[in-house]
């Protein structure tokens, strides 16, 4: 039998390669990003000395503030819509479906094709000569194709709610599936109707899945680049599009770095507040 010290050094040895890779590919680049955000672009290089100018520009310019606000608002809407649409679906699979496994496979198959093309498909559906407009014209409900379906925040929300659906369905399904069925029977035996039973037992016990889904969707969608670029138009532009422009077209890396870090901080604060309030609500309900 190996002694304790030896075996824990073995454990650290197993953990080390992953930590080294993450240190090189994650920690060092993020540190560099922080350092870059404290500099100023001067021609192809950086000016000498450290400065907080970039943060002043990021927080001071109204157009940037609007973009942050819009990104957060769009992601919040996406999160709400995706979770609200997915909950009844997950509930159906967990409590009413006969062939659960087939349902789960059927629900995940649409996510096994290219993300880019799934997003692009919405351009075809919402577009001028697209699926919705041709159907409405065929039914003589409209004479002219509707131009309002595409290139706006609404299109971004619908597209992202579709693209991230699996991230809501699966965690909610798992938490519903874990609920002890005898609790539901007990509630019924004690006289709760279906609605009261749902509100008192099922919904609170499935909250971990709902909260997990919300975080899993909110955090990455705030930084989504592809969807606003393809279906957002000028009104649906989000923060990632602005960051990309700073790096690729404008060539102002310090500003791009500061925009990245501020948006990460905003997302982290919102996600943290959300988790803390969810935890507080769970405590109060107990």
């Amino acid at each position: 039998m190996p002694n304790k010290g030896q075996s824990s050094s073995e454990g650290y040895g197993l953990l080390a390669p992953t930590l080294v890779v993450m240190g090189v590919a994650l920690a060092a680049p993020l540190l560099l990003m922080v350092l870059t955000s404290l500099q100023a672009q001067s021609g192809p290089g950086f000016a000498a000395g450290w400065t907080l100018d970039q943060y002043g520009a990021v927080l001071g310019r109204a157009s940037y503030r609007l973009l942050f606000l819009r990104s957060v608002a769009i992601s919040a809407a996406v999160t709400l819509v995706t979770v609200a649409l997915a909950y009844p679906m997950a509930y159906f699979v967990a409590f009413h479906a006969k062939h659960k496994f087939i349902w789960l496979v059927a629900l995940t198959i649409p996510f096994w094709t290219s993300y880019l093309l799934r997003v692009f498909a919405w351009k075809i559906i919402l577009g001028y000569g697209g699926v919705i407009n041709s159907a409405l014209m065929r039914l003589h409900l409209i004479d002219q194709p509707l131009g309002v379906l595409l290139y706006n925040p609404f299109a971004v929300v619908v597209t992202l709610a579709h693209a991230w659906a699996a991230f809501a369905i699966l965690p909610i399904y798992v938490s519903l599936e874990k609920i002890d069925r005898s609790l539901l029977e007990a509630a019924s035996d004690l006289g709760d109707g279906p609605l009261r039973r749902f509100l008192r037992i099922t919904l609170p016990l499935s909250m971990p899945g709902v909260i997990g889904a919300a975080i899993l969707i909110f955090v990455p969608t705030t930084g989504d680049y592809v969807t606003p670029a393809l279906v957002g138009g000028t009104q649906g532009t989000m923060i990632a599009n602005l960051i990309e422009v700073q790096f690729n077209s404008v060539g102002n890396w310090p500003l791009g770095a500061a925009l990245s870090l501020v948006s990460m901080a905003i997302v982290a604060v919102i996600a943290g507040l959300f988790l803390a309030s969810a935890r507080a609500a769970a405590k109060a309900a107990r």
Partner: protein
Amino acid sequence: MKSKTLRLYAFAYLAFLYVPVLVLPVFSFNNSQFIAFPLSGFTTRWYGALAADSVLRHALSNSLTVGIVTALLSTMLGLAAARAVTRYRLRGAGAALGFISLPLFIPDIVLGLSLLMLLGAVGLPLSLAAVVLGHLLVCVPFALTVLIARFEGFDKNLEEASADLGEDGWMTFWRITFPLMLPGITASLLLTFITSFDEFLVAYFLSGTEATLPIYIWGQLRFPERLPMVLALGAIILAVSVALVIAAEYIRNLGVKKPMVGA
């Protein structure tokens, strides 16, 4: 009554998920370069055009290479790390896990750009190797999640019994641990491969002149006349992925029967 409404909703939701995806195969067989209704007859010419495109073949082979290397590396790293946190009582294991999972909470654009800056600072060229490094960030947390779940549902006594019966560590690994972990390893390889194969933004910043398949697709989306061909590509990716998932499920069932999930 209520369950009937719910069933109706479930099918409506399924339609919402499937309609956009079915647009790909439908228009890939449509005999017109315009992606609009009404459809104008059946053709397989877009698939022929795909087969003839050498840029596409190059991008495909780049994506396969990156996907396979990323899947193998992230699964090996995940396997070692998952074993470390489930088999040893390590101080700071929670913090290490948090650090490894951090990329899940960072937008892909930030992961890609910060790596781009690092490569620039140390003077390394953009390359497929850089893309693999970026993809490891995204894939290792997935591999770790899948593999930890598998290690936790695994009877430690089997390994101890093997050791008691005189097998050395290496033989125990090959005869007990590896077969029992195989379903988890398969799931991890599949998940990380698909994630890498489909990843666009990180690769977009790090690949330099070597396009991966999503970068190729992104480039094509700007040319309306190329679209039917791109949709044909999407239809093929969908068909192959579905076949892969079914094959993986089949392999999983060949392995050790795992206890039924849930009630």
